[in-house]
């Protein structure tokens, strides 16, 4: 019996010693081989650490990579990215490629870009939002709304089908900036029939000089109606949107708003048709 336990003890001790020895022999071997490979290999450029397009875009945004370096990396990452999209969407590569190459304008904006654009937009005095589910309560956008109101005294006009969004926004703004500014003077809401909000929506950036007015039309929304993407409106679209919404703002808020260049006396527009169905909330 004692021999048996002695055998066990020696076997266990030897196993532990051998396991330790083998492991560190392998560590040493891996270290030597790694050292050889590292000395043989030229230093990798920083861009090699970017694993996907998302990382590349983030690096571009942060200024960590620029110009030709970014485009080169983009060329390397794009095929894999398109393959991934095709698999996720259950479509062929050719269909995805057709989508990509048919994009005629590269000014499609995500929510982050929309927010950045508003913050930097020169001469901004008012923002008119015509959308079922505005993004102004989302974190990227909300801070833009706050800083526009507090620092630039921008007025926000929301055209909505009900009070829900506006009340949430007002409550939140009052809580966050209510001590600095009278929020009710800067945000306004006009109710319109919900039928009009079957369209995805748009936003107008009204400037001091009305000639520089800009518009964004929503091009993609999520299943719950949240805006994902928007695109610049053409001048004629901006004109039509402004002319149709202007009477609502003028009549409800007793204002006289700028006229557009070459504006002709309007035929009965939207306001005349539905004025009885619109209401000013604030």
């Amino acid at each position, binding site marked *: 019996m004692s021999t048996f336990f*002695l055998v066990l003890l*020696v076997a266990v001790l030897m196993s532990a010693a051998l396991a330790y020895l083998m492991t560190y022999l392998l560590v*040493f071997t891996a270290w030597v081989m790694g050292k050889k490979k590292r000395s043989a290999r030229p230093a990798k450029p920083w861009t090699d650490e970017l694993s996907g397009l998302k990382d590349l875009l983030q690096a571009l945004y942060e200024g960590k990579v620029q110009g030709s370096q970014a485009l080169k990396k983009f060329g390397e990452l794009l095929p894999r990215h398109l393959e991934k999209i095709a698999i996720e969407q259950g479509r062929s590569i050719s269909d995805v490629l057709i989508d990509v190459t048919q994009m005629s304008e590269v000014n499609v904006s995500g929510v982050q870009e929309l927010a950045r654009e508003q913050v930097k937009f020169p001469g901004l005095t008012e923002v008119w939002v015509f959308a079922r589910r505005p993004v102004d309560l989302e974190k990227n956008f909300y801070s833009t709304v706050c800083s526009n109101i507090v620092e630039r005294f921008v007025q926000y006009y929301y055209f909505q089908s009900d009070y829900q969004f506006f009340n949430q926004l007002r409550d939140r703004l009052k809580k966050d900036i209510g001590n600095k500014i009278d929020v009710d003077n800067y945000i306004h809401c006009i109710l319109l029939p919900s039928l009009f909000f079957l369209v995805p929506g748009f936003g107008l950036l009204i400037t001091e000089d009305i000639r520089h007015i800009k518009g964004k039309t929503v091009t993609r929304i999520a299943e719950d109606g949240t805006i994902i993407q928007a695109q610049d409106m053409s001048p004629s679209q901006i004109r039509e949107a402004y002319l149709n919404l202007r009477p609502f703002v003028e009549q409800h808020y007793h204002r006289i708003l700028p006229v557009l260049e070459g504006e002709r006396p309007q035929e009965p527009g939207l306001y005349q048709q539905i004025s009885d169905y619109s209401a000013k909330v604030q």
Partner: protein
Amino acid sequence: MRLSGKFVILVILGSFLGILVFLGSKNPADLGTPATFFDLVGKVFWKLILTALVLIFAVGFVLALRRIGDFPTEFGRTGSDLNLYGYGIGLSFVFGVVVGRRVLSWIESRELLLLFIVGVLLLSYLLYGINLFLSRRIRELKADYSRGVDSETDLGEVLAIPAGRRLIMWSFFLGFVPTLIIIVADIFSD
């Protein structure tokens, strides 16, 4: 990882083995009956060292062969392979008993002998299963290892992190235990 400390340990272990080889170099294998206790210890140590060197060489040789031959290597399964070597040695002992060869002479009863050898074989099975579980844990260290650690680069990465090193060490330990039980038992027979 600070390699220098571990390297020193390797050098010390290697020196220890060398010293024992030197101590055993009085050729105790020739002694029918060890003259002194020291000679007995020397004789046993000599055989243990020989066993250790053969095992290290055998495992290293197999790993190198797999790599050179560009076979799917699965470094994370080396411990399980060691269990299989032990299983093979145990089987050869079973055959030895069956054909009437003198095996593990310090176990006098044939039934106890078979019980011992079968017990070691079952232990090999059990530790083989545990080793497969450890192999899975090694694969789960990184998504790239989902098909196994099959290159020296991957093995280097696994060994570079403490958790990976621990898993590999445990895997080797569990692989060596049943193999060494049976080998040491045979050495003690002399």
